[in-house]
């Protein structure tokens, strides 16, 4: 007789596909078949298309704009300029950083590719043709490109609109091109540590201007329904709820009359956090015309006009004892914000979390100061696959520690080990005020060094250098070590907000009668796999298989309010909200189970997917049974249904960390850098889906490779953007991408409901210094201290040439 035995515990756990399961991404079925629904896939009846006339100059006065020829073209519906927006007070819009930004250029253009006029036409081709017919007369003005000259007495005045407003959003402005000064820590103490130190090092480290360059560019469809007065905005928004609130504040349309929807998003990396002129112009044009308006930027517009990242000039100083104990850090940053301060940071943090710059080290005293300035460049300053300004901070400290190691003639890994915050010091309060939640840095780096056979690599490098001297090879081997601590999961409402909106996040769960569920969150996936991983969190919390849970995000009419997805905040904040909402479900389920089993609640215990009577597991009710009961039983004292909502205000940030080791072989005659191997150990606390983590690390490392080895948005002396197309902007392909080796340790966050910390951005934060340190390490024995990124072929060759290694 064939008797079916009940499933084992292991089988029940596997069926849930909860925490720790490498469940396949549910999103991929549609993405791999080309069935995603991106903003450009949205087609509405009668829809018109918008396109921008953009500035050819970096800095110029607009003397006149003549729209006649464009308006005369068949198919052209409207041409908007700042003059048309002024009566609506929409020619400027607030930025997330407390500045204002011109929606359409107001009397002046301040960067090349700035939006000057918005042409609305029946199709894209007509709109593009009509843009060429808008005649704009400019008077060119001297451009300010070098951030170091922004505060010179004779520097060109850029922002005439705020020239008399010497009190900015973040305090006093010292010059008409100054945006803010922000500082943190003990400057006097840091200076004393430097004065008293056995050894000091100082270096100006530039993290060049780069661009997130998501595969899908930014765009939107705005549709004003004149019958019910409701504006719907579909767009590439990493923070749809915040966009709705901002849209309401600047248009005076009440929030319930605005619906913001983020459909599938093809990568964001910070580029889709901000509010762009295209969104405002599309909304205005739809309100005026009464028909839907689509605007989608092209690749060159994306690279040259929507938000850039980095552009930090960081002067670091480290103090240390002669045996390598770091005794102090002093750092000053000159931050180039472009023509408007459109940085995407929590409002009280104009330099983001740059004060994580003490890194993974127990540095007793530290100071950092940041001055932001205007230049004739595109606005932005977003967190490109990192938490706010964390990658800049990590790059600075990881380069400085390497530079100190050279000066002390110590191995860079050994110096790090010597100065790490020790496991027993957590929770650890840094000299610049952050409370690190948990960590075990020594174990992570030791595991990494063992995995790559670090000692053997160093021995090989000695041989390589000797062979190079003997003329037997023209290649030099470099070993790059980087150890990073991130600060993610913004953040506690007490100090983190964007334009006054607290940076909590949310989850709402509804269990259906037959035991499946829908959960809605305030975040929005751009490829991270939320629909997969958040269902896994819930599966473990409430005992319903992940495949029976639908995840929805991105529609402000249905999703609970949240601050969106960037800065690795989704898992630390919305993931926590998900777990907490799940626990509310379980608490009610326990009451229902107690009623059904006719026992006291306290007599029940949770077991994988059910409540069972303690000591009598045969007496149990599965979540599926409980769900049905919640809809069909009149339970005294309990409302029908099984739903919960949680708004989670995190008590602290989370602090993921990792140890990365890169080996590079450099051809000194060509400057070609061959990444021989790259090892990445990440500790992101509890691991929800190892396969997705690995994918995230691969992606982040590839972007780190791009930044360290090639990406740069630069401008010539009159403000012409260079590298504004994929002909020049370095986007590596599979061919340029080396093999990645991933590894992990697990140090859960003590304050997060499931101990998770977030991982999506760690590889970019740790990857950039690892690559850069490897390149520097190859030349370290020849006396190289520092050279600016990107380490592309010609710059690496130049380094070799300056050191006399090639002709």
């Amino acid at each position, binding site marked *: 007789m064939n008797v079916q035995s009940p499933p084992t515990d292991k089988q029940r756990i596997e069926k849930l596909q909860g925490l720790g399961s490498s469940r396949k991404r549910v999103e991929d079925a549609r993405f791999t078949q080309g069935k995603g629904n991106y903003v450009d896939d949205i087609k509405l009846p009668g829809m018109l298309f918008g396109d921008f006339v953009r500035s050819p100059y970096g800095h110029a006065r607009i003397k006149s704009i003549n729209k006649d020829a464009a308006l005369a073209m068949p198919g052209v519906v409207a041409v908007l300029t700042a003059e048309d927006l002024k009566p609506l007070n929409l020619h400027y819009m607030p930025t997330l950083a407390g500045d204002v930004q011109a929606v359409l250029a107001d009397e002046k253009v301040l960067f090349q590719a700035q939006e000057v006029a918005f042409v609305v036409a029946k199709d894209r081709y007509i709109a593009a*043709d009509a843009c060429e017919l808008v005649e704009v007369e400019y008077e060119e003005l001297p451009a300010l490109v070098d951030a170091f000259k922004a505060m010179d007495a004779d520097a060109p005045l850029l922002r005439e609109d705020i020239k008399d407003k010497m009190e900015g959003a973040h305090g006093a402005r010292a010059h008409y091109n100054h945006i803010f000064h922000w500082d943190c820590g003990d400057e006097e103490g840091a200076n004393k540590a430097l004065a008293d130190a056995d050894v000091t090092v100082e270096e100006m480290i530039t993290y060049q201007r780069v661009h997130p360059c998501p595969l899908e560019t930014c765009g939107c469809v705005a549709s004003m329904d004149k019958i019910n007065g409701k504006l719907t905005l579909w767009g590439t928004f990493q923070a749809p709820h915040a966009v709705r609130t901002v849209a309401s504040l600047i248009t005076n349309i009440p929030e319930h009359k605005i619906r913001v929807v983020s459909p599938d998003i093809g990568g964001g990396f910070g580029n889709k956090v901000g509010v762009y002129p295209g969104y405002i112009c599309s909304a205005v044009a739809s309100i005026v015309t009464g028909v839907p308006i689509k605007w989608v930027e092209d690749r060159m517009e994306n690279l040259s006009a929507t938000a850039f990242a980095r552009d930090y000039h960081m002067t670091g100083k480290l103090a240390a004892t002669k045996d390598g104990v770091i005794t102090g850090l002093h750092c000053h940053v000159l931050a180039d914000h472009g023509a408007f301060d459109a940085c995407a940071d929590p409002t009280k943090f104009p330099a983001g979390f740059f004060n994580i710059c003490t890194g993974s080290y127990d540095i007793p005293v530290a100071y950092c100061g940041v001055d932001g300035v205007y230049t004739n460049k595109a606005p932005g300053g977003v967190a490109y696959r990192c938490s706010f300004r964390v990658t800049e901070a990590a790059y600075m400290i990881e380069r400085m520690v390497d530079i100190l190691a050279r000066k002390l003639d110590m191995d860079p890994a050994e110096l790090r080990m010597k100065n790490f915050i020790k496991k027993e010091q957590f929770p650890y309060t840094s000299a610049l005020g952050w409370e690190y939640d948990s960590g075990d840095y020594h174990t992570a780096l030791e595991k990494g060094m063992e995995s790559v056979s670090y000692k053997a690599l160093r021995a090989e490098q000695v041989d390589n250098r000797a062979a190079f001297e003997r003329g037997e090879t023209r290649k030099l081997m470099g070993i790059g070590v980087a150890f990073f601590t991130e600060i993610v999961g913004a953040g506690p409402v007490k100090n983190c907000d964007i334009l006054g909106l607290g940076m909590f996040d949310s989850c709402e769960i509804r269990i259906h009668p037959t035991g499946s569920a829908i959960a809605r969150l305030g975040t929005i996936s751009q490829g991270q796999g939320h629909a997969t991983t958040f269902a896994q969190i819930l599966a473990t919390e409430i005992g319903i298989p992940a495949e029976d849970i639908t995840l929805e995000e991105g529609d402000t009419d249905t999703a609970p309010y949240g601050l969106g997805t960037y800065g690795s905040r989704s898992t630390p904040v919305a993931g926590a909200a998900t777990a907490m909402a799940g626990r509310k479900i379980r608490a009610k389920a326990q009451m229902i189970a107690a009623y059904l089993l006719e026992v006291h609640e306290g007599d029940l215990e949770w077991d994988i997917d059910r409540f069972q009577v303690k000591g009598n597991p045969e007496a149990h009710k599965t979540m599926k049974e409980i769900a049905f009961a919640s809809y069909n039983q009149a339970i005294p004292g309990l409302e029908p249904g099984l739903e919960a909502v949680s708004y989670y205000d995190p008590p602290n940030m989370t602090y993921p960390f990792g140890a990365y080791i890169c080996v590079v072989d450099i051809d000194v005659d060509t400057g070609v850098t061959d990444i021989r191997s790259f090892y990445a150990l990440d500790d992101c606390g509890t691991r929800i889906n190892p396969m997705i983590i690995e994918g995230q690390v691969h992606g982040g490392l590839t972007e780190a490779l791009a930044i360290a080895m090639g990406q740069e948005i630069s401008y010539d002396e009159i403000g012409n953007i*260079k590298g504004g197309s994929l002909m020049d902007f370095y986007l590596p*392909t599979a061919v340029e991408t080396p093999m990645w080796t991933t590894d992990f340790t697990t140090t859960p966050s003590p304050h997060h409901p499931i101990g998770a910390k977030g991982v999506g951005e760690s590889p970019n934060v740790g990857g950039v210094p690892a690559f850069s340190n490897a390149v520097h390490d190859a030349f370290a024995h020849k006396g190289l201290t520092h050279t600016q990124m990107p380490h592309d072929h010609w710059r690496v*060759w130049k380094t070799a040439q300056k050191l006399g290694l090639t002709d």
Partner: protein
Amino acid sequence: MIPGSFDYHRPSTIDEAIGLLASHVGDALILAGGHSLIPMMKLRMATPEHLIDIQDIYDLSAISIGANQIDIGATVTQAQLIHSEELADCCPILRETSLQIADPQIRNLGTIGGNVANGDPGNDMPAIMQLLDADYVLQGPDGTRTVKARAYYEAAYFTARSENEILTSIRFTKPAAGHGSSYHKQKRKIGDYATAAAAVMLEVSNGSCTSASIAMTNLADTPLWAEAAANALIGSALDADAIAAAVAAARAITNPASDGRGPAEYRTHLAGIMVKRAIETAHARAG
């Protein structure tokens, strides 16, 4: 990134194409694989009112290898050049170069005619054709003429072709059996133009170089045939001194732009490295 409007023509004979070109002289451009022209149109650097697509002209799509001569039709794709075993046997540098052009998707569409015809200094095949001393066959309303690849390029996007002519094929003498050749190209990534590239073809007899040809890509506003550099090799044992002399002669004729690939100084330096490595590889392959 949106082109202006244009009329599209797709003739099926060469006479029809020449006729269309004649009736729209100055307003028409020839389209084959489109990988040079379409990006230019999207940037509105090219704004033709008429596009004459020659991909349907069957006669232009063949590779024919005779006893002494090789003829390649203008619409032969880079993928075809790669997949022809016969061509790879007698003139392997065409496969080696084609494999360094862009990526497989582009090579399935990009044509040799398009690569050489419009005078884009970034394209790889012009230097190869100068290396091989190829003739370009140009057909127009007045008949057919040939122009040497070494005389075809005048400046970036300026060539010896008249506006009413179509480059229909390329022909060159079959390289001698036993020759060695190589194309060394350094680029920032797949799909990029060369930062510097050099092609070398040579013959060696009894340890001595008996013939040599050298050409370079993207190191001036035209491809560069480096005659003096090649002469420095002929008669030598391809020793270090001869190679150094060839490298110096090759560097002397470069005039690269300073751009995102690096300053002119670097690209000239790199030209020498590419020439040196191409000579060494070609030498190793000769015999």
